[in-house]
């Protein structure tokens, strides 16, 4: 005995013609969506209270966002802290990072920084200093500042863009790097622009998520 319902079998039913991408975007030849990951900087202003960082990092781990770096520190207002995130995601993912971040109650504002924002990170590099002259020359070349020296080692502090630090590390590599520690990127918007203020385009849900609201944020 067969149980179940009447009606045409699956292959006999009319089938829809369209298709969606894995991001749920309807495929329309005119707006065919491209979703290559891009790297961007997101700045969040948060309440300076215990647990915020854990809320933020927990959000990223459970939603599987690809975060490259996260820095946090106090601001000019002692009740607020600024979290700077470098994210590498396709555009729908970046939009989700911003929206989910904004949902956290201690988060005051979230903004994706424009491509021309100032972005810096810091590294401490401890190298073998058996050839002090050459080490000093390399340090000079990258504007690195000696913060510690011993007969065997020298430790330099270097700040700048990610690429500059990458390059410095590579060059220092010839002497043998004993230890290395670097911070993530921290950033501020240029000129009179307020880093924290949410751009109107981000207060509204971005309708054209297939195109970025800002130029791609290449590291300077």
């Amino acid at each position, binding site marked *: 005995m067969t149980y179940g319902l009447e009606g045409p079998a*699956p292959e006999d039913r009319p089938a*829809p013609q369209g298709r969606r991408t894995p991001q749920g975007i309807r495929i329309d030849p005119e707006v065919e969506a491209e979703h290559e990951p891009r790297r961007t900087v997101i700045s969040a202003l948060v309440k300076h209270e215990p*647990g915020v960082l854990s809320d933020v990092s927990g959000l990223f781990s*459970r939603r599987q966002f690809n975060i490259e770096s996260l820095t946090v520190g106090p601001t000019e207002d002692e009740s607020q802290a600024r979290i700077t995130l470098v994210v590498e995601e396709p555009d729908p993912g970046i939009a989700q990072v911003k929206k989910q971040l904004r949902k956290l109650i201690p988060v005051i504002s979230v903004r994706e920084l424009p491509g021309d924002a100032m972005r810096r990170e810091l590294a401490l590099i401890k190298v073998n200093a058996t050839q002090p002259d050459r080490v000093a020359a390399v340090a000079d070349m990258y504007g690195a500042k000696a913060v510690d020296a011993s007969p065997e080692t020298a430790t330099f502090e270097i700040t700048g863009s990610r690429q500059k630090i990458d390059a410095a590390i590579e060059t220092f590599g010839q002497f043998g790097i004993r230890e290395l520690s670097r911070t993530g990127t921290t950033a501020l918007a240029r000129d009179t622009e307020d880093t924290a203020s949410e751009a109107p385009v981000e207060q509204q849900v971005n309708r054209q998520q297939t195109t970025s609201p800002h130029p791609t944020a290449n590291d300077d």
Partner: protein
Amino acid sequence: MSERAAPITRETDEQPAETRPDDSSTETDRPPVTTGAEAVVRTLENAGVEYAFGVQGGAIMPVYDALYDSEIYHVTMAHEQGAAHAADAYGIVSGEPGLCLATSGPGATNLVTGIADADMDSDPMLALTGQVPTAFVGNDAFQETDTTGVTAPITKDNTFSSDSARVGQDVAEAFALAREGRPGPTLVDLPKDVTNGETDRVPDELTPPDTYEVQEEADPEIVRDAARRIEASSRPVMLLGGGVIKADAAEECRAFAIEHEIPVITTMPGLGSFPEDHDLSLEMAGMHGTGYANMAISLCDTLIGVGTRFDDRLTGGIETFAPDAEVIHVDIDPAEISKNIHAEYPLVGDAATVMEQLADEVDASPEAKKWRAQCQQWKSEYSMAYQAPEDEPVKPQFVVEALDEATSDQAIVTTGVGQHQMWACQYWTYTEPRTWVSSHGLGTMGYGVPAAIGARLAADDDQEVVCIDGDASFLMTIQELSVAVRENMDITVAVLNNEYIGMVRQWQDAFFEGRHSASEYGWCPEFDKLAEAFGAKGFRIDEYDEVADTIEAALAYDGPSVIDVHIDPRENVYPMVPSGGDNSQFALTEDQL
């Protein structure tokens, strides 16, 4: 007490009812607040809380001590999970945050399932947990758990309250936050020294934290564009989710659909947002949705989704979900827009407000006569049917229909999770919002009985509360029956008993070559007798001719009753869209899977 609340008389020797302050009491009549715990309880009273569900324990004792003199009626549950589910269900039915209480450590962790459930379904709920004194926090003290840490991913927000002077404010903000915007569970962790500490500060306002922003109205420009799209569409469909009910927007959605003659589909949490006996209703879509709803959703050209998060149980495979449709998505939470399904027309705002905006903007109804005829044809082609030969065991669908028939339109249904839940979706005709209480997003087995307890207290006196449960689901929280008996709650539990974890058995048959690994319940207790042992009324159904009379007797019994319904153990749930599949390719029988 509000009109909704079922009156429960509580008279004790120490505290005769007549000496308790009544509704007319003013602030000045009440004794002054002197401790953090009293500030917490006074805050809850001022918020209009009538019921609390919980279990006593060491770290929460100061709060319970303050509750002793309170107008808030506390229902002691058998397990903290039951407290959280009861509070959740109370929130669904009443629209106001349900309150649950637990002590630190195991009490708090036992709440976790219920909190996660409320979080997935966006149900308003406030959980208060005791915590070891602040001096012990972080030292692995007795019954210490990092409760805010544990619950951070499953709450809308949680707070470790560290100051007696601030604790009332923390609770007030958490309560307001639970119901504001997109509702959800909030939690306040209350260290014992904070609740014992001195304070007289009670907040006078219930406002969420100042960083919480809600957008009520959608962008008028997008509303205009969406309206043009609706007018121009020839195959429109409205998809109503649980958010419609949470936002009390059912009326606006109904009016819009009926005025413009747009076929309406609901998600599972959206059941009751549109009357299923209306011509335009195509009922529920998704994995076990009706064939006609899934055909309509697959072939529509405009999809107006309201208060839905496009869960994968609804959409099936993203690539094949409504592939021809432009999506208009109404949601109060911007993060839901284009999360799973890209929305061409994102309308962020309160569902009722946005539907009014949309109604004002749409000038002409879409020309969709052919489409509606097509939907009706699908309705007859794929009508929800089942075979019920007299000489075979009772079919569960028959029992659900019989229960529906024996109760009023206002009756509230709660369920556990599994096959019985799907039959309760498919074969019960929902017509009113807030009459369907189930665990949707998390799919928590054992939800049904404690939910019936919470729903009972939020329901009107003359509203029946029916719990449709499965044998495996019922066994998970059966201890809460003792609470229903103690409180003499008029609820009827129908256990659709097939001695299986039926939904798992169905999947094993379809996808694991019938290898019934750990899904058989050969040692199932006799639930009617078990009910009697708890002090409830027990019934049993084996044959078709017992169904109507037994249901009538169980509903008539004034108190908790349990019907052990021995159903056909082979019966499975159809239609079915295999996980991640194409909604239009639903299987009507096992052969089509």
